[in-house]
């Protein structure tokens, strides 16, 4: 199969993730959308590694998975703290800081 199709798929996933971040209002969903964006980048890296015929892209994908896992830990900690304080995970509600 032509690896270029995987690049198109990754661009599609990245766009879905970016739109998800922009339109969804629940912090968890926003966060999941960001993870989708990171994984679409992984897919692009692996597909490009195949097209370029070297392993750099695959190595990057492994590191990104580790970084994404660390990000989940920090992100969920912050979101859970906010949820316990405000009893809501909506990103519209914390609005004390503005202008």
């Amino acid at each position, binding site marked *: 199969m032509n690896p270029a199709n995987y690049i198109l798929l990754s661009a599609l996933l990245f766009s879905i993730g970016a739109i998800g971040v922009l339109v969804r209002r629940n912090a968890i969903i926003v966060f999941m959308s960001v993870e989708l*964006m990171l994984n679409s*980048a992984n897919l692009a890296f692996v597909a490009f590694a195949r097209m*370029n015929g070297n392993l*750099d892209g695959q190595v990057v994908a492994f590191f990104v998975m580790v970084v994404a896992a660390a990000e989940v830990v920090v992100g969920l900690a*912050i979101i859970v*703290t906010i949820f316990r304080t405000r009893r809501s995970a909506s990103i519209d509600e914390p609005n004390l800081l503005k202008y």
Partner: protein
Amino acid sequence: MNFTPPAIDYFALSPMIVIFAAAIVSVLVEAFAPRTIRRFLQLLIVFGALLTSAVLIVLNAGTRTVTGGGAVVIDGPALVMMGTIVVLSILGAALMAERSIDPVGDSFAARASSLPGSEDERQLTQRGYLQTEIWPLTLFAVLGMLLFVTANNLLLMFVALEIISLPLYLMTGMARRRRLLSQEASLKYFLLGVFASAFYLYGAALVYGYSGSIFFPEIAQSLTSKPSESIVVFIGMGMLIIGPLFKIGAVPFHQWVPDVYQGAPTAVVGFMAATVKVAAFGALLRILYVAFGGVRWDWDPLIWIVAVASMILGSIVALLQTDIKRLLGYSWIAQAGFILVGLAAASPAGLESTMFYVIAYGFATVGTFAVISMVRDANGEATNLAAWAGIGRKSPLVASALSLFLLGLAGIPLTSGFVSKFAVFVAAIEAGATWLVIIGVIASLIAAFFYVRIVVIMFFAEPTEQTASVVVPSAFTTISLSAGVAVTLILGIFPQPVLDMLSNAGLFLR
């Protein structure tokens, strides 16, 4: 298949290794040391590691090498940036170590997980619990910044970006007072930060796809050697620089800056405002000058637009602010624009002036936040400008120090800010961007207005009942404040030694 391990120059990497080892020891201390001696041990580790690292950077002064399989490059500009980051971190960590300003302890929540306003929180505060988790986080953030300015490939730069960001997201949310604001700032910073990182990563994938390599020198080579330039690599480059531009707080990636400045603990803002800016400019310079130096005309217009937007928006919106921390947040955005003017020159002068600017800016910023942490009323820090009326008559010394920093940031002669603004504007004119400099000068005039307004409020307004008082700090904050004053004056009056050092540092190793 034979595997040859990469040659690693451990001495060149020692400044980072020291910080990394200290960070791990610091986590272990957090887990195993008894509560009573934890703070003492942590301070010992943090300041010991930072000072050792500073000494190792000085010992490495002549090192120009690419090591770690080509992933890390230690060259002149990298060493200057590393040295600046470590020294500013020492001053920032001193602000965080302060505990005699707030009567109930230091500036961090007794336990970050306790609910704001709960019985749990009240009891912890009453028992005088101090939180020490901030210290390992600080060390990891410093490690990330050191890697960010030395990274020579897209992967290490991404990892370094995350090592900087993740601890800072947490540190933002740990204020002892006004915890709702602090947690909100943390959430906003986190969500926007990871969004920007995702753009960086996808951009990196596109650049890798075009050039077949993640190493900056090879990317530069592929851009000049390939017969046709592809639109893919320029989309990739545009997405790639979103990562550092977000950390710099340039328009349109600036929304988090005022929120984080206002919500985060003041000591943490002092630390991150100074150091992250150095690190992010170091990384941006390396991406643009090393990897994309050959296609300067393709990224210059992009930087021009971002610089103009940052200067104008930051200066004008700062005029309307009533909270001093938020005002400084907008002023950071404007300053980012001024520095980008120097960076857009894409010349050796551009590199030198950008580095000089971030050094001058870093020391003035640490000093500014040292003063802000000392001005307090019954509810904690008094950040509303109304509470600053007449401070200069009650505490002339502290108010004069703050005035010096603000005039420095505004670019008044005899301060570091004047020399740095002059340097970036000269670099831009030499590169032929005179129109950019004209906009820059106009924006500096607008910016000078709001900086001077604070000075006027402090010295020429009558003290009212609302006027806050200035608390006498311990040696920690005093040292940071004095260092800020000294560097701001020295760089303003005798900038030549530092300028010489920067030109001796030379260019990026390719």
